[in-house]
Structures are given as C-alpha cells and as structure tokens.
C-alpha cells in the first residue's frame, strides 16, 4: 500500500540514494537486484532515513549506467521483474520509507524503440519524437557537457542520414519536447509509476528539454512550460507526489525551477556542495555563506535538496575558474581522479578518511536548510576505485561484511558487475556494515545517531536560517528557527581548536541544550557568548527559555 501522500512530506525527509545494481545481489548473478534490496530495507530503516531515491532500473543497454533507458515501463531483467519492484515498494512503504525513482526525460537510449522507429524513415510517425537536422550547425551556442568524450552535441545517424541532437553521450538522443505527443507520452510514463505507488520523481537533466536557436538551449521558458504542465497534472491527479529537479545551474537559474511554486517541489543545490568542500579545506566559512546569500528565496512548499556526494563526479561546473583550480589541486591531485568538470571520488577519500571531517560535513549537510541526501556507502565511509572508467569508481558494491564479496553477492568474484573495493584502508574487510554495527562509536552508529537527532525536530527541514557572522571566520554559525523552536548550529571548519564569540543577545535568557548529549550550557546574557571548539567540532544547541 502506498503511504499516504501528504503534502510537503519531502521537507522532513532524509533521502538515501541507492542503485539497485550496487546494493545487494539476491540471485547470485553478481548484480544487485530488487529482491536483494528489499532484504536490506531493515538496514535502511535502522539508519533512520525515510526516503529512498533509486537510480534508473529500467531496461537499458547500460552504456550510461541506466541513464540510457530503452523501456520506461519495465524493470531491467538483471534487477528482477516489475513484480519484484512492487514488492520492494510495498515493503518500503510498510517501513514508512518513501520511494523516489528516476525519470530520465531529456533523452532515451538509442536502443529505445521510439528512436529505432524515429530513425527508420523521415516519414515515420515518431520521426519528430527526437531532434533531427540536416546539418550539425544548429544551436551553436550550446555547450558540450561531456567534454571528455563528446566533440559535438550533434551525431550523424547513418540509417536516416541526418544528425540527431544529444546533450549527453551520442548514444542518448534527446527527445523533442516541442512535440506534444512526447510530452503526453512522458506523462503517461509518470502515471504508470504513480499508479504503482512511487512517491516522487527525480527528473534528470531538466534544463535541456527544449532547444532554440541563438540560445544556450538551457533553462528556456518553453522548458519551464513543460515542467509546469507535468506539475499541474501531478497535483491534480496524484497530490503529494514530489518532483525533484536535477538542474546543475547557478542559484538564479536554479530558482526558476521552483517557478511560483508551480514547477518542482525540490531542486538540488549544486553550487553549495563544492563550496562546502572548499570551505572545509580553506578553513573559512566564506564560500558557504556567500553562495547561500546568493541563493534566492524559494516559494513556500519548495525545498532545496542538499548532498555531499552522489553517483556522479563532484561537479565543478558551478564554481569559478579559480575555485575549480583550487578544488582540483586540493581534492584531485592525481589527474585520474578528474572527470569532465569534476572529481570522481567518494566522501571518505575526499576527506582523507578523517572521521572528524566526515562528521562535520555530515553535520552541515543535516543542519543547513534543505532535504539531505546520503549516498549509499558513505554512511560507513566506503572508498572508491578511480581506476574504473567513467563514474564507476563510486558505484562499487555495497560493503556489508568482511566475508565473500563483502556480503554483496554469493557469485564468483569474477562475475560481479564491478570489482569490490579491496585495498587495506577502504576495502570491505576493513570497512563494512557488519563490523560497524558491532561498535557504538563506528561511523555507522554515529550516522544513525545524528540522523535520529535531525529527525527529532522539524526545524531542520522547514525552519528559517539566519547566519551569525562571528569575527572568527573559521566558524560557521547559524540559527534555525521554526515556530517556537530555535536551534543554534556552530561549526568549526578549522583543523585547530578555535575560540569564538557569538552575538546571541537577541536570545538573552535562553539556556543552550547541546542536542547530542543533552547537556546544558550557560545561559545567554548580554556579553558575547564564548565557545571554545576542538578541531572540526560542531554543536547543535536547542535554545530553551526556562
């Protein structure tokens, strides 16, 4: 049974991002599947998250890890059947966990029957379902996203003897959203999954739906029209469904995807993420406060989606050239770690496996305004394999135990979809769920604890934020407030102990209750509130007037 679709549920959600293929293999074929995923729902529930975002699981030639869909209404046979998905969905809902699936709407695989028909002849009824041209000179103002692999956004099709438009890999032709039939059909796809009971969609690559000559072919008004059309239908027919935008854009452009509250419910805050890493390494709050100051207000009912790492590279598209150079130098000294305009590494290796920094970054993720997403494996500090191609290095098998294949699969290791991490630092014998469950002070246990604290208050999901600007720039401090509840968050971004004086006079008379240990700190008075903080330490204080 689907969970009741409550409006705004996503605001207090904590989302766990998982790929079926990588999580748990039930049938011992070396590839994760829905039955395996369903078996691990208890783990996900214990972690404390209340939503799962599934990466594409549809039939696909898997030339882009499923983002090249060949059938929108089915399940890739490697991952099971549609029934398996339905059972998984029911089990998740039974545990109070909502499920968000991918809608890769911008493009299909070139193996999709729609494209096969479209290319078959110029007269085919589906010819206009894709963007065709006799030349490769149209839309010249459009940037190429996959700089490392693609030379053009046009690809020559020898079958129909014409060029087709693709913003990503050339085997991923873009759908033509100027064609109402395409828009209707994608809506039908959404209805198909909503009828089954999914709780929301993460819409991939939304800025690129429409093309117009003389523009960048990104964020066009016509694209927003398409989104508003879908949103209207969702609200009318499936209220409570959440639409999440993947739009890797600057804040001002991102803001447009919320419209007047009539487009997306949520959008990833792409510019914030690299600046959190930058602020940590610079030991300076400036990059974080600056980008959040530049982030426009969003309509009521809308929410930012925050993340530290995901299945893609740590994208550096939304930073300046100087910032990108800095990030490369600091976080990707080995050029193998770089991909496109980003860094293909997981959280723990990016942070030198420093537990204090990992905790601090998660602390910020869970306390800044927005809905946090935790990428599978980061809760135990999994490593990556930068020697695997593309972004596969951050998509290795989940490490459940120190046993056979890390507990991921009973198959022969050689048949796994990807080699598991084996090195002495991050390999599954050293980093796995089973061993971390046994110790109270493991990263996993700590993650459960902080997620529990985050969920104990709606102030983090729905509250306002006000930055304090103590003279010590190494300290990032802000006040979250919702109704009568006020939480003070203080983060020491520095590797050394810091003293900080906070101007809390407006909260005079309140005492501070530290939310992790529930210890009482001195009452706020007229003088600046002095805190001393250890390296990378952070506090969450609930303010109470007693």
């Amino acid at each position, binding site marked *: 049974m689907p969970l009741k679709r409550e409006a705004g549920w996503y605001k207090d959600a904590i989302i766990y991002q998982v790929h079926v293929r990588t999580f748990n293999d039930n049938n011992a074929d070396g590839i994760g599947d829905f039955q395996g995923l369903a078996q691990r729902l208890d783990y996900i529930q214990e972690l404390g998250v209340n939503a799962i975002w599934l990466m594409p699981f549809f039939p696909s030639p898997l030339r882009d890890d499923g983002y090249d869909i060949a059938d929108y209404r089915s399940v890739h046979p490697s991952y099971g059947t549609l029934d398996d998905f339905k059972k998984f969905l029911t089990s998740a809902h039974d545990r109070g966990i909502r499920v968000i699936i991918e809608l890769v709407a911008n493009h299909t695989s070139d193996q999709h029957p729609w494209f096969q028909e479209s290319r078959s002849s110029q007269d085919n009824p589906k010819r206009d379902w894709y963007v065709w041209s006799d030349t490769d000179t149209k839309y010249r103002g459009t940037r190429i996203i996959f700089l490392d692999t693609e030379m053009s956004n046009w690809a020559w099709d020898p079958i129909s003897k014409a060029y087709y438009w693709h913003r990503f890999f050339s085997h991923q032709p873009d759908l033509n959203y100027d064609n109402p039939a395409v828009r209707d059909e994608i809506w039908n796809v959404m209805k198909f999954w909503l009828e089954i009971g999914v709780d929301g969609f993460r819409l991939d690559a939304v800025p690129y739906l429409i093309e117009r000559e003389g523009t960048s072919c990104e964020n066009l008004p016509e694209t927003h029209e398409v989104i508003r059309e879908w949103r209207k239908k969702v609200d009318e027919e499936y209220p409570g469904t959440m639409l999440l935008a993947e739009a890797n854009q600057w804040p001002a452009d991102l803001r447009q995807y919320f419209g007047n509250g009539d487009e997306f419910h949520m959008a990833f805050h792409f510019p914030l993420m690299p600046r959190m890493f*930058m602020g940590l390494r*610079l*030991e*300076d*709050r*400036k*990059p974080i406060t600056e980008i959040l100051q530049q982030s426009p207000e969003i309509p009521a009912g809308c929410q930012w989606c925050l993340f530290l790492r995901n299945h893609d590279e740590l994208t550096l598209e939304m930073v*300046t050239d*100087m*910032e990108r150079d*800095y990030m490369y130098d600091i976080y990707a000294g080995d050029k193998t770690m770089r991909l496109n305009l980003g860094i293909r590494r997981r959280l723990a290796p990016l942070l030198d496996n420093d537990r204090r920094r990992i905790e601090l970054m998660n602390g910020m993720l869970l306390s800044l305004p927005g809905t946090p997403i935790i990428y599978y494996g980061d809760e135990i500090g999994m490593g990556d394999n930068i020697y695997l191609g593309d972004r596969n290095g951050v998509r290795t098998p989940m490490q459940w135990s120190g046993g056979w294949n890390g507990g991921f699969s009973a198959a022969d290791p050689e048949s796994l979809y990807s080699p598991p991490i084996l090195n002495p630092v991050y390999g599954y014998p050293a980093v796995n769920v089973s061993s971390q469950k046994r110790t109270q002070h493991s990263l996993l246990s700590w993650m459960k604890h902080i997620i529990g604290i985050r969920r104990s208050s709606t102030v983090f999901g729905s509250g306002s934020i006000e930055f304090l600007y*103590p*003279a*010590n*720039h*190494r300290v990032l401090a802000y006040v979250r407030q919702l109704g009568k509840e006020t939480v003070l968050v203080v983060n020491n971004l*520095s590797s*050394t102990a*810091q*003293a*900080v*004086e906070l101007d809390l006079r407006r909260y005079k008379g309140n005492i501070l209750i530290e939310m992790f240990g529930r210890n009482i700190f001195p009452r706020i008075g007229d003088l600046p509130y002095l805190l001393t903080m250890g390296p990378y330490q952070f506090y969450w204080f609930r303010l109470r007037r007693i």
Partner: protein
Amino acid sequence: MAEETLLTDEFLRQLINVGEVDIVVGLPTHNNAKTIEPVIRAIQAGILKCFPRERVVVINADGGSQDGTPELVTGASIDDVWSASKVYALRTLHCISTRYARSPEPGTALRTILAAAELLQAKVCVVISPDSTTIEPDWLQRLVRPVYSNNFDLVSPIYHRQRAEGLLMRNVLYPLTRAIYGYRVREPFASEFAISGKLATDFLGKEIWNEEWGRIGAEIFLTVSAITGKYNVCQTFLGTKVRPHLSANDVVAAMRRTVGALFSSMDSNSQLWSTISVSQPVTTVGNQSEMVLEPARVSRKRLRDMFTAGVRELEPVFRSILSPATLSELQRIAALEVGEFNYPAELWVKTVFEFSAAYHKTVINRDHIVQALVPLYRGRTLTFLLENQDGSAEDIEKSEESLCGEFERLKPYLLEIWAERK
C-alpha cells in the same frame, strides 16, 4: 612575555578571530588619511591577484591618528576591489587595526606588527608604508614571493627615484651600511620590506625595543640583524617611490631615526663589522623598468646657506666631533659661492666616519652629534645635486657607486679613529 603588555586585550581578541595566517601585511600609520586609501586598495588588489589562496591579514598599527586613518583602513571594502579587478577572493580577508600608543613611534608600530605576526604564525610579514601613493598591487607579490616561495628572510626594496629623492639613503645610509656591514643593501632603512616568520621572531627577541633608537629606527636594526644573523637577504625592484616633501624639522627627525639608529647599531656591533673589508652584492630579483628623470627643483642657495650657517654656528660642537683637518676643510668650502661649491666625496666620508666615531665615544650628547650632521648633510646633498643635475639614471648610479667605493676605501680610517682613546 613582552607581547602581553604590547598587545591590548581588544587587539588580542581580533587576533584570535584571525587565527593562523600565511601572510601578515603590516601598515604602520599616523595621520595618513590623505594617502592611505590608494595604499589599502593596492594591498587588497595585490592580495586578491597574487595570493588568493593564502591566509592573509592586514594589520594596521596606528600611533594615535586624529584624522580617522584607522577607520579608513578597516572600512575599506574589498568588494570595490573585486569589481574593479575582476578577481575573486576564495577566503575571508581580515583587516584589523590597533592603536599602539598615544604618540607615534615607528619602532613600536613595527614591534606590534611583528608580535602579531609571530602570534599568528605568519610565514611572511610584509610592511607597507602608508604614504606610498605610487604603490602598485604587484608590490605585494614582489616583496612576499621571495620569502614565501624562495626561502629568503628579508626582502628589501629597490625603488626608482628622481634625482632629488632619497638623498639621505644615497649619501649616507646605503654607502655607510654597505661599507660597515659588507652587504650592498640599497635600502637599509626601508619603508617597504618583507621578512620571514623566523627573522621576525628572532628580531622581536632583540634588546633594542626599550631603547630610543629601537623605538624610532628599528628598520635599520632589522636590516643589520638580518645581515649579521646570516639570514638570506635579497632585494626586489618595486617601482617609483615618491616621498612627501620634508621640512627642515623633518630632515632632523629623519636623521635621528636613520643615521642615529645606524650609528647606534655600529656602536653595539663593532666586533662584527670591524673585520669586514669588502662588500658583497645582494641577490636581486625581478626586473627594473626604465624611468624618465625630471630636473631637480632644489634651492641651491638655500642649501648652501644652511650648510654655511651650520658650519659657522656649530663650530664649537664640530671641534668635539671632527678632526682639525676635516673641520678646516669644511670651513674652507663653506666660504665658496654656490657656483663653486663642492663637498668632495672623500671629505664627506671622513665627516661621516668622524661623526660615527664621536658617537661611539660619546664625546658630547649623542643626539646632539646626530643632529649636528644635518647642516653638513645639506652641503653634501648640494654637491650631489650639482654633480648629477644633468646626469642620466645610469650616471647617478655611477656617482653613487663611486661614493660607496670611497666609504669602503676609507674604512681603515674609521677603524683607526674608532679605536683611538677618547
């Protein structure tokens, strides 16, 4: 423990907030409101352009300005620099100010800046003069980079100067320091320089700070400390340096700050310098650009009259300081008309050496000795200007080099009179 009394609690609070830094930019001020704004903008632009990744703080040590100088320093918005230079700062740039005393003492300002740099564990401390209106953002890079990247401990500037500029440096400070300490540091009393954290810490520990010469002329001691301490010293080409016009009183004060401090250092370091007989060049980095020299606008008659009056009125003082031969020769040239006036290099060198020896022996009050040199210095500057009135920059350089040669050649004479009994 000196820092505990040197740094106020409020300044210490500011330093706590700044935390560890890579570079401290020190800005000693006292009533510099007329010139400070372009200087602080150039500093900010230099930081943004050349050190965007480094942790930098600008520290203003103010000697009790009444014209709002500290407020201009701390209030200068870096946003304007961003938009003008199109360069973006990765980091927070702190700009803090402290009033170190009721009365201005340049040495105390420097000490305050160095103490802060030590507390903040700065790798480099660069000091910029608040009246350097010709400063370019690149100055910061040229001063800091040799310390930051090439392990130098003291970076001293070389400026472009008009023919009537830097006369005290050209005629006394450079040649005397060079002859005494054996290093060809062109600006031993620099108003812009950079030093390493190591040298800053070492220098802070010196005993000079409670002495008058330390409070007013610490820059000379810094150069001498770097040389005698075997620190890595280099020079860097900056650019045009224009000093505000000095009044007669200013010249006296400058003489006390610079020559007085240098004489004092000679007095306390004679064991070190007495064995040095030749000078060696100092590594110089960067490229010197061309400069068009303008005619000097100096009242020659006034200079000559001040010289003549000085020789006449201070004769009793000079009898205590100078040898009879030198005094006699000075009296001879004091009788010359402007057109014939010539204070030859050898006589000038002997004059300076005899003054330094007199200072060493304290034949009269030391401060009076230093001040008594002023009218003679005016005579020497007149000769310098007459000799170089039509010369090119290269000609002036040769003239300076020739004077330095005289100082080195006659150093045995200094050793001789230095050792004579009082």
